[in-house]
């Protein structure tokens, strides 16, 4: 699986309550997306275009089990790469069909608006402008299977547990 898109850059310790604020918990899905990052970067969510890629620093998604990954996917982002993730958030990425890999130092590789190319199977990210490539974690076959099914609900449907 490969992704290519324009990058947005966020820093360290972006927690679930910034991605999916408390007032979004009781909102309709469209409003949930609009409120994404509204406390730390007001107006950003309306600038995201389909296929964009999110780049972040360390401990992205620290916090709650609320599925911030689902919100990021619904915003139209194609995937993300961070220096490191909270483990629960990372699982949410895979299970909600939102491609994500960890690459140490990725947050220093880009300027906002650069184009990134990500190879999920190889665990690499390249900055098309500078030509720099860095290596991170490769997704396991199990994770790629879940992403290719569109998320864990696709797997459940294929196994006969769900009317999708």
């Amino acid at each position: 699986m490969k992704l290519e898109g324009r990058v947005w850059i966020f820093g360290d310790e972006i927690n679930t309550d910034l991605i999916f604020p408390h007032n979004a918990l009781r909102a309709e899905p469209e409003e949930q997306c609009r409120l994404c990052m509204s406390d730390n970067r007001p107006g950003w969510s309306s600038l995201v275009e389909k296929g964009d890629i999110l780049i972040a620093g360390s401990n992205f998604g620290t916090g709650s089990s609320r599925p911030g990954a689902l919100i990021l996917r619904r915003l139209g982002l194609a995937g993300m790469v961070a220096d490191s993730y909270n483990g629960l958030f990372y699982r949410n990425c895979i299970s909600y069909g939102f491609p994500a890999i960890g690459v140490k130092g990725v947050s220093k590789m880009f300027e906002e608006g650069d184009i990134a190319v990500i190879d999920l199977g190889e665990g690499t990210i390249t900055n098309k402008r500078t030509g720099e490539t860095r290596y991170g974690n490769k997704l396991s076959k199990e994770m790629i299977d879940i992403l290719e099914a569109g998320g864990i609900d696709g797997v459940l449907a294929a196994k006969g547990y769900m009317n999708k």
Partner: protein
Amino acid sequence: MGMTMSEKILAVHAGLSSVKPGDTITCKVDWTVCHDMFFNVDGQDMYKGVTHLDHPERCLILLDHSVPAATSRDALGGVYARDFVKKHGITNFIDVGDHAVIHQALAERGYAAPGRLIAGGDSHTCAAGALNAAARGFGPADITYLFCTGETWYQVAPTILYRLHGKLPAGCSGKDVFLYIAGTYGDATGHSVEFGGDGIANLTIPQRQSIATMCAEINAEFAIFPCDAALEEYLRARGDENINPIAPDPDAQYAEIRDIDLDKLVPYVAKPHFIPMNCVPVTDLQGLPLNQVVVGSCSNGRIEDLRVVADIVKGKHVAPGVRFIVTPASQRIYLQAVKEGLVETLVEAGCVVTNATCGCCYGGHMGLLGPGERCLSTTTRNFKGRLGSPESEVLLCAPATAAASAIKGVITDPREIINGRI
């Protein structure tokens, strides 16, 4: 090669003789549990398409975040939860009236026990590690999968061992141990955390629960305490007959071993917006004015927490301009607090004693903050906007620090009150 506690529990549940960090394995879990937030949020309704569960007898659903419902949407979540339970034959269902913060329910009602592997739809599920279980949080999608199949994948993480030595001084509790660790060593991202050392014997089970729950805030995969005489006594008082402790192998491999001298600890406070490397001794923040103080949550809503608070506020009064909210972690704790006269003491001191829920902790049920307000809380998170306005501040502490500060109206070292200097 020897295994840590988390490695042993994962290996057993994967049907393997051993596992090591980096392995990806599939485990059958003992319990899959979730609370009302699984049903309360629009756009997260994967569960509605589920046709059948393989093991409904290993599922628990409990309502704890917004009960009784704060909004009609939350009430609808309760309807969905009851429908799901009925449709799929889930007999382990805890409804309003016997409710508890889910992590307290797992402990007081026998779901969490040594050696068990528990999957919870809440990030603080690691709290069950205080009872020598391997427990962690998952999002709604994974919980749906676990409800259906009773199993999921785990990637075995390397383990950091904290060896605790000695005994806590007066005025300090388990929360201070955690805030010291988080403030000194930072996050444990990509790692499990385990505890050992002679000092554990000097920590009560609720203090261990407070530490284990908070390990979610340093991104730990699991947080596990060993099973000792105190835990066995707790389990037998609960009615357990067969106890199967899991101990680490003597030659278990750790990514790091860190020693903590409990005798040298002081009360700690986490400053606003994040926890790792952002905690300081309470003396650094003394005198900071407060609008609200909270004691409660899966971290600090237990009977001994309420006793600490009642002991400090007895015969005194909450400072003018401060709202002091006290939330027991379960109906059973609430009842115990009534029987012990703690509720009377707290109300006489001007505390607001609330219904036993997640309450203020998640910013969705009650006790929210306006712009410019500052809250000192024993709950689990201090994220920007956690309790309402993004222009408000949340600082975290232990119950003694919270109670002393509520009385003074400013952040206060509880040792001053405990030692009779105020």
